[in-house]
């Protein structure tokens, strides 16, 4: 599930081949039950220590539930079983704020910026005692956030809110980023911008990404994990998956609702990193 040839390593690092193959995150037999409903039933996968690993699956299959279980945000009515490890450390049953301070960055679905606070306040909230916040890094990626410091986050556009949600996580150093549908509901041009930013971010931090836009997936992801019916249905090279029209169709339902293109193949072949379901 983890060891395989890696043709396009984006971050060549001075570590040994072996260390590079050691996954940053191990999810083993993860089951999540929320108010009696079995949402995940024995999910196992690993996240590579570099680059982007994408988590795919049809709507409502449990991608968000998986990310939230990793970062300890399963609702109180929920029950989590199995093992989640980062290196030797078990992440299960540890409070979210500890996990995050330990280097797990979480960019939630629907962005969740604090609408009533200003952009600067949203960023300041992510500052931590004892460390210097990397404002230069954030403002280099998102100059807009610097200019709009005094604007209320609720009045930002969707794309700007997404930049803020990513920016506040990048204010600190992370060992792994969990990013949930960062291009959801954004205009094609903004989708490209977000994808570019994530590409640059992934050069230094491994990312576990949930993404429905297959063009973005094709551009960013090296490894893919596909969920279906509460379990892992496929893992392997992301490009391989996307080239198999039959496979993407059966696993993701692509070709019908999600990508309104004549065929999945032609969508994937198109160079534009744009979402076809956007007006």
């Amino acid at each position, binding site marked *: 599930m983890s060891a395989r040839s890696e043709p396009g390593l984006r971050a060549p690092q001075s570590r040994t081949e072996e260390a590079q193959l050691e996954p940053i995150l191990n999810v083993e037999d993860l089951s999540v039950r929320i108010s009696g409903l079995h949402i995940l039933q024995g999910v196992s996968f690993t996240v590579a220590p570099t680059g982007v690993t994408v988590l795919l699956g049809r709507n409502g299959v449990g991608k968000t539930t998986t990310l939230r279980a990793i*970062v300890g*945000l399963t609702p*109180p009515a929920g029950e989590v079983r199995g093992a989640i490890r980062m290196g030797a450390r078990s992440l299960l049953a540890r*409070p*979210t*704020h500890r996990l*995050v*301070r330990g280097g797990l960055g*979480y960019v*939630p679905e629907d962005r*969740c910026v*604090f*609408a*009533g*606070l200003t952009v600067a*306040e949203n960023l*300041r*909230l*992510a500052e*931590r005692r004892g460390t210097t916040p990397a404002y230069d890094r954030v403002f280099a990626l998102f100059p807009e956030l610097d200019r709009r410091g005094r604007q209320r986050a609720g009045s930002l556009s969707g794309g700007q809110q997404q930049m803020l949600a990513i920016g*506040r*996580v990048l204010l*600190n150093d992370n060992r792994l980023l969990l990013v949930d549908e960062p291009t959801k509901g954004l205009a094609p041009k903004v989708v490209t911008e977000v994808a570019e930013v994530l590409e640059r971010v992934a050069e230094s931090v491994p990312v576990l990404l949930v993404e429905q836009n297959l063009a973005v997936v094709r551009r960013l992801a090296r490894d893919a994990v596909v969920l279906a019916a509460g379990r892992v249905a496929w893992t392997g090279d992301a490009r391989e998956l996307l080239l198999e029209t039959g496979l993407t169709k059966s696993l993701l339902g692509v070709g019908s609702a999600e990508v309104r293109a004549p065929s999945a193949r032609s969508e994937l072949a198109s160079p534009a990193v744009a979402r076809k379901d956007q007006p």
Partner: protein
Amino acid sequence: MGTVILLTLTGLGLAALYFLVASGLSLVFGLADVLNFAHGLFLGVGAYGTWWAAGNLPGAGSDGFGFVLAVAFGVAAGTLVAILVELVLIRPLYSRTIEQVLVTVGLSLAGVALLQATWGADARPFPRPDWTRQVTGILGAQVPNGGLLLILAAALVLGAILAFLRWTRYGLVIRAGVENREMVTALGIDVRKAFTLVFAIGGAAAALAGALGGVYFGTVSPGQGGSLLIFAFIVVVIGGMGSVVGSAYAAVVVGLVQQFVNYYGTSGLGDICVVGLLAVVLLLRPQGIAGKVATA
């Protein structure tokens, strides 16, 4: 004219009392989703703490600096009880709403029973400086000084809470937490510390209401907190859960409506009008005047 001014100022005095109780309730609910029925207990502790200190604490008394010391003691006692209640009883029960309601209701009943057992069920004369018994002539109205003191104190508390929310790190955490608590923890912040802090602030404000309410009414009795709490809850709902400014506006509206209707209508009609007002607000604007935002 004199009557209108008198009713306005006594209405505002009542509003001040409601606000001091409601501001803490509102922040606690807005941030931690806890409906704290034991909030009236903090008021009772503040009132009895002040009353006890004035008679027993060395240096404290019913006048001048001694009185300030007595009130400070009452407020400190209320704050301490609020912190203990949060740490010991509420913290293990976060996100278990029904248990929380049971525990806080039980605690408020037990608290009243404890005050009764210790100091009796009857109202006791409250120690207060002589000037608070007097009246000040304002535009032809003879306004009791105790009421003016309450208005002043509530205005100061409102300003202090807003400054705290606006300018401090914890204030930022509280404002963000009222909006989306989960996301605050997802940024690496232990939001439970902010819960304790909000209980402490609410406990201090309620205890101050207890002490100054004692001055205003001239007596202290175990049941006082409970009846005030009902109107404070109404104020919180009308103002919008989690909004301190909303609580202030709502307290003023409720205090004035009660005072004017009780005077010009029949006594007791004001209370019914307040409940009617609550129903109207719930129908037209279920999120309250200011919605779920900690500052505005």
